[in-house]
C-alpha cells in the first residue's frame, strides 16, 4: 500500500516552521518532497540546543520524508536548475516574504511559463494586501498581534506565549489543505492554480467561534470579553495532576448541584453554601480562591480516585499530562502516536506518529530528515541531468 500522494512531486522552497510543516504533511501522505535549500541551508538547521550529533532537533521535527537539494538561486545556472526541476513538479511551495520569489525568478508567473498547470502555494506572514504585507512576521509577533496570548497568562501580568509554533503549524495545515484541494481539482480538470494562505489568516480563522460569540450580549462562560484571572493549570493530586474545569463539563446539566455533591465527596462540604461559589460564573470569577480549596482537598487523593468521583457525577475530566506521562501512556502507544526512524547521522530516533489513519493509503515515515544537500546528485540525475552538467554546476557554485 502506498500513500495517497504517491507519484506527486513537490518542489519545496520553504524554510523555518510553517512551510516545512506543510510539506512534511504532504510527505507523510506519500508525496516526493524535493527540499530546495540555499548553500547555507534552511535557517532552522541552526536552531538549538538541543542538537543531536550536530543536527538541530527542531529541524528534525519538521523535515522527515524530504530530499535535500542545494541550489544557489542567485547564480543564473542555479535558477535554471530550479526551473528545470519545477517543470516536472506538480506542486511548488514557498514561504518567502511577498515579492522575494519574483525577484529570485521563481515566482508563480515564472514557474507557470515552464509548467503551465503547476499548483503554486505561497505562504506569507501578514497576507498579500495592505500596508504591512511585506513586513516580516514570526510566531511570536503573530501570537501577539492576533490575540493568541489573550488565552494564556494572568490579567495584569506579563503576556505568555503558547510554547509551540501554533500559528505556524496551523498555517502549514491550511496550506496543505489548499494544495490537496488544488491537486484534486487538477486531477479532474487538468487545471493548476495559485493557492495562498498566511500566518495571520490562519490565526484569525481559528478564532471564528470567539469572533461570532462577540456578537452576543452575554458571551457565555467563554465570553472573550470576560477577564479570566486564572491560568488553566492542572490541579496537583497525590500523583498525576488532573484537568479540572467543572463548569464546562456540566453545560446543560444541573451544574450547581453536581458541584456541591463533588465538594461533599472530597471533603469540601464546608464551602458549598459560600456565596462566592454560587454558580458557574461566580466559580470562574473566584477561581483563584477555589483553587486553593481544591488543591488542599486533592493533596491526599490519587488522580484515579478523583477522576472516578467526577465520572460518577457525569463530569468529564482527565489527567493533566506532561510529556513523560503522555508518551508512556498505553492510549498513545495503542494509537501509534510514537514512531521511529533511522537518522543518517543521529541514529535511531523516536518521532511523533501520524494522527490520521487511512485504510487504503496509509501515511508513513519513509525518509529521515535529510542532511544538507544529501540528495542533490540523486535528484538531478533522476531529472535527466548528465554527470557532466552536474559537475559543472557544482564547480561554478550553482549547486552543492
Amino acid at each position, binding site marked *: 500500500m502506498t500513500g*495517497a*500522494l504517491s507519484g506527486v512531486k513537490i518542489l519545496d522552497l520553504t524554510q523555518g516552521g510553517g512551510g516545512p510543516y506543510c510539506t512534511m504533511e504532504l510527505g507523510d501522505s506519500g508525496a516526493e518532497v524535493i527540499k530546495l535549500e540555499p548553500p547555507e541551508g534552511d*535557517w532552522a538547521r541552526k*536552531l538549538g540546543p*538541543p542538537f543531536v550529533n550536530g543536527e538541530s*532537533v527542531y529541524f528534525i*521535527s519538521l523535515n522527515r520524508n524530504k530530499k535535500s537539494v542545494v541550489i544557489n538561486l542567485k547564480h543564473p545556472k542555479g535558477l535554471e536548475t530550479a526551473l528545470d526541476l519545477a517543470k516536472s513538479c506538480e506542486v511548488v511551495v514557498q514561504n518567502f516574504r511577498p515579492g522575494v520569489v519574483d525577484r529570485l525568478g521563481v515566482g508563480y508567473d515564472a514557474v507557470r511559463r515552464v509548467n503551465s498547470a503547476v499548483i503554486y502555494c505561497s505562504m506569507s506572514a501578514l*497576507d498579500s*494586501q495592505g500596508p*504591512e504585507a511585506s*513586513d*516580516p512576521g514570526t510566531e511570536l509577533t503573530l501570537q*501577539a*498581534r492576533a*490575540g493568541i*496570548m489573550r*488565552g494564556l497568562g494572568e490579567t495584569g501580568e506579563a503576556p*505568555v*506565549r*503558547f*510554547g*509551540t509554533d*501554533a500559528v505556524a503549524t496551523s498555517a502549514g495545515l491550511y496550506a*496543505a*489543505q*489548499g494544495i*490537496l484541494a488544488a491537486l484534486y481539482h487538477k486531477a479532474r480538470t487538468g487545471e493548476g*492554480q*495559485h493557492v495562498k*494562505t*498566511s500566518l*495571520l489568516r490562519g490565526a*484569525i480563522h*481559528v*478564532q*471564528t*467561534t*470567539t*469572533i*461570532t460569540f462577540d*456578537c*452576543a450580549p452575554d458571551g*457565555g462562560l*467563554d465570553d472573550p470579553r470576560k477577564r479570566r484571572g486564572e*491560568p488553566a493549570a492542572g490541579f496537583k493530586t497525590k500523583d498525576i495532576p488532573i*484537568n479540572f474545569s467543572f463548569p464546562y463539563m456540566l453545560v446543560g446539566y444541573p451544574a450547581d448541584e453536581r458541584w456541591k455533591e463533588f465538594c461533599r465527596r472530597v471533603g469540601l462540604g464546608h464551602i458549598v453554601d459560600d456565596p462566592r461559589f454560587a454558580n458557574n460564573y461566580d466559580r470562574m470569577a473566584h477561581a483563584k480562591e477555589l483553587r486553593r480549596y481544591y488543591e488542599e482537598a486533592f493533596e491526599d487523593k490519587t488522580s484515579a480516585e478523583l477522576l472516578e468521583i467526577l465520572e460518577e457525577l457525569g463530569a*468529564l475530566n*482527565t489527567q493533566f499530562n506532561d*510529556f513523560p506521562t503522555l*508518551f508512556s501512556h*498505553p*492510549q*498513545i*502507544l495503542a*494509537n501509534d502516536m*510514537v514512531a521511529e526512524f533511522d537518522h543518517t547521522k543521529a541514529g535511531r530516533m523516536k518521532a*511523533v506518529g*501520524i494522527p490520521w*489513519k487511512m485504510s*487504503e493509503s496509509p501515511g508513513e515515515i519513509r525518509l529521515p530528515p535529510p542532511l544538507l544537500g544529501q540528495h542533490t546528485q540523486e535528484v538531478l540525475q533522476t531529472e535527466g541531468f548528465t554527470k557532466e552538467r552536474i559537475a559543472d554546476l557544482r564547480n561554478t557554485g550553482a549547486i552543492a
Partner: protein
Amino acid sequence: MGGPLEGVKVLDVAQAAAGPLGAMLLAEMGADVIKVEPPWGDFIRNRPPYKNGVDLMVFGFSRSKRSVVLDLKQEKDKALIFELVKWADVFVENYKVGTAEKMGLGYEALSKINPRLIYCSVAGFGHYGPLREQGTMAGIAAAFAGWGSFSGRPGGPTEQPRGGYSPDTITPQYTCLAILSALFYREKTGKGQKIETSQVEAGVAFLQSPATEYLVTGKQPQAMGSASALIAPSQVFPTAEGYLAVDAPNDRVWARLCEAINASGLAQNPDFVTNPLRVQNRRRLIPILEAVFSERPAAQWLSVLKEHRVPCALVSADLDDIYADPQVQSNSMITAMEHPKAGWLKTTTVPWEFNRTPGGIKSIGPLLGEHTKEIFEQFGFTPPDTTDVAAARASRATGR
C-alpha cells in the same frame, strides 16, 4: 462562486465541534455538505451564547451546510439516510467508538452500499487503546495530549491555552487534510477508504516540535513566559506604555535591532554576536534590552523597529485590536453576515485563497432542519410533518 471541491458531496452526521468543523472546511472549498441532525438538534445547539434568542455556537462549526432532521428510529428516515450514503462521496461521523456500527452506519455496512465512499471517523481519545470509549471535549483532549505542560510563567504553574487553538479547531484541520488526500487518491485509483483520527491524536501531532524534543532528548520542554528556548531575543518586553513583542530570528535582524535602538555597542559585543551566544547569555542580554524598551511607549518602538524591518508587534489585549488590525482589514479576514433572526453576525472568511476556484462561505449556518423539506424532496421522499419533529423534540426534552 465555485471551489476546488465543487461537485463533491459530503454527508455529515457529526455533532458538536471537532467533527463538524472538518466538514465545514470542505463546504467552504465548494463541497455540498448535508448535515444530518436528530430532532432535538446537534448537541451544540440550544446553549449559550445567544443573540436575539438564536444560539451562536453552530455558526462556528457548521457554516455553509444544509441541515436535514432525521429521526433514525423511523423507517422512512433510515431509508433516506441510506439514499444519502449512496449519494455521498464523503461520510463524517464522530459518535462514541462502536456506536456507528450499532446504528448500522459503520464502514463495513456503508461501503457495501457505496464502495467508493470515503468514510471518516473522528473519535475522542483514539479508536484503539483502553480509553477508546471515553467521550471527550476540547479541554479534556488538550489536557491529556500534554497541551498544558510547556507554556506559562517561568517557574510555573504550566497552563494550557484557551481560545483559538484547541483540539476543537485543530482536529478538523487534520480531518480535512486526510479527507482531501483520500479524495485525490480516489480520483487516481477509484478506491474509497476508511479514515480514523481523534482529538487526542490530532492534539499530539499539533505539538510536533516540543513533542519531538521530548522524544529525542528525554527532557520535558519548560515554560518560558513569552520567550523562546531557541532564539534570543524573542519575547514580549514591557515598555513605558504597553507591551511590545520583539523577535530577532537571525543575526542580520539582530544587527538591525541594535541599529533601531541605537545600541551599536551591543551589536559589537562578542557575547551577543550570534544567536547561540545570545541564547546562552540571555540572562545578561535581556535586562539590557528591558532597560532600553522601558524608555519609550510600545507604539513608538513599533514604528522605529518596523522602519528597520525588525519583526515586532503590539500585544492584542482585546478583540477590538484584531478588528482594527490593518492587515486583517486589507485582506478581509473578518466579515459580517446577516441571519434572519439573529441579525448581523461577525465571522471569519475562508483561510485559503485559490485564484481559479475561490470557494467561500455559502451561508452563516443552517437553522435546525432548515433544508429538511428540500432534501426529502431531492431524494424523492415525502417531507415529514413538522409537528412530528416537534413532538420528537419534546419527548426527548422531558425524557432527560
